[in-house]
């Protein structure tokens, strides 16, 4: 059966121009591809610096570790503008080795993982015919390789739902136990919830400091179950990618067998700064996990100062060696609070400022001055509520010597809507410019004092029932003063 096993082929994502000739670039000898795995623009505002994490690998996918600053050139492009070369300000290699890396391994435990590598033997009872056996072995040998106590490893196994969750820790024994407990799924579990598992995986590794990486192994494609109670809210491939991007997590994907979904597995890797690998022979898995780990451990960190050209996003392009064949590019977010300038700055727009200032001046000339010359009585509140300003004011005209306030239609100022106001309550008499209030029958207050008769002044508040009326002599009274 093993006669159909294919050679291992590795596709590295995000590489433009993959096949470097052996006689290429002296400075980057042995490098087959480079990849920008992460861009960190978080200190852009403070010191204008952008940090670029680079991975350089040889034809076998192994990291190339002896490259120097001079091996790389870096350019930045704002929108459709010219490609601007930027000086590399700092350069270091292997920084993840000191800080430790956090790995979350996601293992497909669907039914097909219990077939053999070619997919022809489906019901063998010999574990040596199962793909999953090799995957487990590969994970165990990776665990044996990890000696750095700062490195943390976690595990998720899944099919129709996430079966086992081992959060990243330095306790490798727990992962071994969990792997032993992963058994062949039943018929009802014959689904592959790949995207939802990756989405959820992000939340298990999110909280760790340092470089965080998810490695997904699957031998098929995302095969969701309808109305799956384990994933009531679906995030899909976009949701999974976006979650990883948001947290700066790289997702490496391994497609096992010819049935693996290359398109989408490589999409996940490419958009999160990881790499995608196709493996046809399960036995080759063993070296692959440590290869991925080595790639991460040996990443280069390149820092440069961003140019000031306005753009929502900018493209970083890194070239190694002579730059013809080895090239990697990735976008980063560079928008400013105010956005992109207008195409052409027209000077007439400066006229807006003086025009607005003239408006401000006019506004300051607006006087809210009370100008009614005639004496008035105006209702302030009716039955305790604010009265409508209009139609509730009467002028004490020159012809009249007396006006009345009350609930009757015959009154000069009729109060309707206040049950406590009876027919005629109050009279205001005018005698030679002096206004006198007379309230013989009912209890009336002026300025909250009970009165029978009283000479009124501007601003006096007359209360009848629950209604208040303001008296005003008018501006005529001010004229002489």
């Amino acid at each position: 059966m093993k006669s159909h096993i294919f050679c291992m082929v590795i596709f590295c994502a995000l590489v433009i121009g993959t096949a470097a000739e052996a006689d290429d670039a002296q400075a980057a000898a042995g490098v087959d591809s480079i990849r920008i795995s992460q861009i960190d623009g978080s200190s852009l505002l403070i010191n204008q610096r952008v940090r670029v994490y680079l991975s350089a690998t040889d034809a076998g996918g192994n990291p190339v570790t002896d490259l120097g600053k001079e091996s790389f050139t870096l350019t930045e492009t704002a929108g459709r503008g010219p490609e601007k070369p930027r000086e590399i300000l700092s350069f270091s290699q292997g920084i993840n080795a000191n800080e430790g890396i956090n790995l979350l391994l996601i293992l497909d435990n669907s039914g097909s993982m219990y077939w053999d590598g070619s997919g022809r033997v489906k019901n063998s009872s010999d574990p040596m015919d199962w793909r999953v056996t090799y995957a487990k072995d590969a994970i165990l040998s990776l665990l044996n390789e990890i000696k750095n106590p700062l490195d943390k490893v976690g595990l998720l196994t899944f099919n129709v739902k996430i079966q086992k969750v081992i959060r990243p820790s330095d306790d490798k024994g727990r992962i071994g136990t969990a792997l032993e407990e992963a058994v062949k799924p039943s018929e009802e579990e014959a689904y592959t919830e790949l995207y939802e598992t990756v989405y959820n995986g992000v939340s298990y590794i999110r909280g760790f400091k340092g470089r965080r990486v998810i490695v997904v192994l699957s031998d098929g494609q995302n095969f969701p179950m309808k109305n799956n109670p384990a994933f009531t809210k679906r995030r899909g491939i976009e949701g999974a990618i976006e979650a990883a991007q948001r947290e700066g997590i790289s997702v490496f994907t391994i497609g096992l067998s010819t049935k693996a979904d290359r398109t989408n597995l490589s999409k996940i890797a490419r958009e999160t700064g990881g790499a995608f690998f196709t493996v046809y022979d399960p036995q080759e898995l063993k070296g692959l996990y440590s290869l991925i780990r080595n790639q991460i451990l040996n990443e280069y960190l390149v820092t440069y100062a961003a140019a000031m050209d306005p753009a929502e996003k900018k493209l970083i392009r890194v070239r190694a060696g002579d730059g013809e064949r080895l090239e990697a590019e990735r976008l980063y977010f560079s928008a400013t609070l105010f956005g992109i300038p207008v195409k052409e700055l027209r000077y007439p727009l400066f006229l807006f400022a003086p025009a607005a200032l003239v408006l401000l001046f006019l506004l300051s000339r607006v006087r809210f001055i009370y100008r009614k010359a005639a004496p008035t009585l105006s209702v302030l509140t009716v039955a305790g509520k604010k009265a409508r300003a209009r139609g509730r004011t009467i002028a004490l005209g020159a012809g009249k010597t007396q006006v009345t306030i009350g609930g009757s239609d015959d009154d000069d100022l009729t109060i309707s809507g206040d049950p406590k106001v009876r027919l005629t309550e109050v009279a205001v008499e005018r005698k030679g410019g002096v206004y006198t209030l007379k309230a013989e029958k009912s209890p009336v207050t002026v300025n909250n004092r009970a009165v029978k008769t009283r000479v009124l002044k501007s601003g006096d508040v007359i209360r009848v029932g629950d209604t208040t009326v303001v008296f005003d002599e008018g501006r005529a009274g001010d004229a002489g003063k």
Partner: protein
Amino acid sequence: MPLSARVIFFGLTGIIAGVVAWPFSEALIHYQASFPSLIVYNIAIGVAVGLFMGAVFGTSEGIISMSGAKARGGIVAGLIIGTAGGLAGFTAGQYVMLSLGTSFFNSTGAFQRYGVPLSRAVGWAVFGVFIGVAEGIRSLSGAKVRNGVIGGYCGGLVGGLAVEYMRVFAPRNIYARLIGLAALGFCIGVFYGFIEIRLAKASLLLLSGKLKGREFPLTQRFTRVGGSDKTDVGIAGYKGVDDVHVEIRKEKGEFVLTDAGSKTGTFVNDEKVKKTILNEGDVIRTGDASFQFRKR
């Protein structure tokens, strides 16, 4: 002028503030590539926008109370505090935007459409807070500072979203930022005025004379009433009103009126008083000016 007109007035000066600041910001944006670094660029725009918006908005209290001295004091306070606000607000906004924006970046259209504008609006809100507190700092009033913080924050957030969505939906329109900035100013003004009214526990309604109908919210812990520009309830031009005639102090939820040694005296409900607790509907008379005290 009733209290609602006050709110509209604040909104109008806010619009003017935005329009005045616009050409200057547009000019700076145009020369972005000439700046040495992002932080210098941010500070320059922040200072320009804050300076102009702060100065114009600072005049609003003076214009409303028709006091030239208050307006002039407002320009200076607004200029200084607005500049600081622009600097802090824009730097904070850019920081929030870069860190959040990087997360949202590359992802689905929904995040580009909602996440990024929202994160930027937070920066505008910080800016709004500074514009809002200018009047409080000018008049050294803690309550006004609080009103400015709340009003400025809400106004900045809502107005900031307007700025951002103008950019999202009309990116090619050269007047997009003008409309956005005017909306920002309007929102800061309206929210400031609205918060001032909502948080004032009482007000004085003027019942007589040339300013009749004007309502003064008693926002502060300590309010002075008189003919001078320095008072908070300024009633210049009334006969028999001293420069500082009456002081009203908020004590344990009560408003206590004290006559400030006036020549003509202070009358509450026609009784001459030196000091008294004010009740709803009390009529206060100082010289020719008569007020009604209203609790809210």
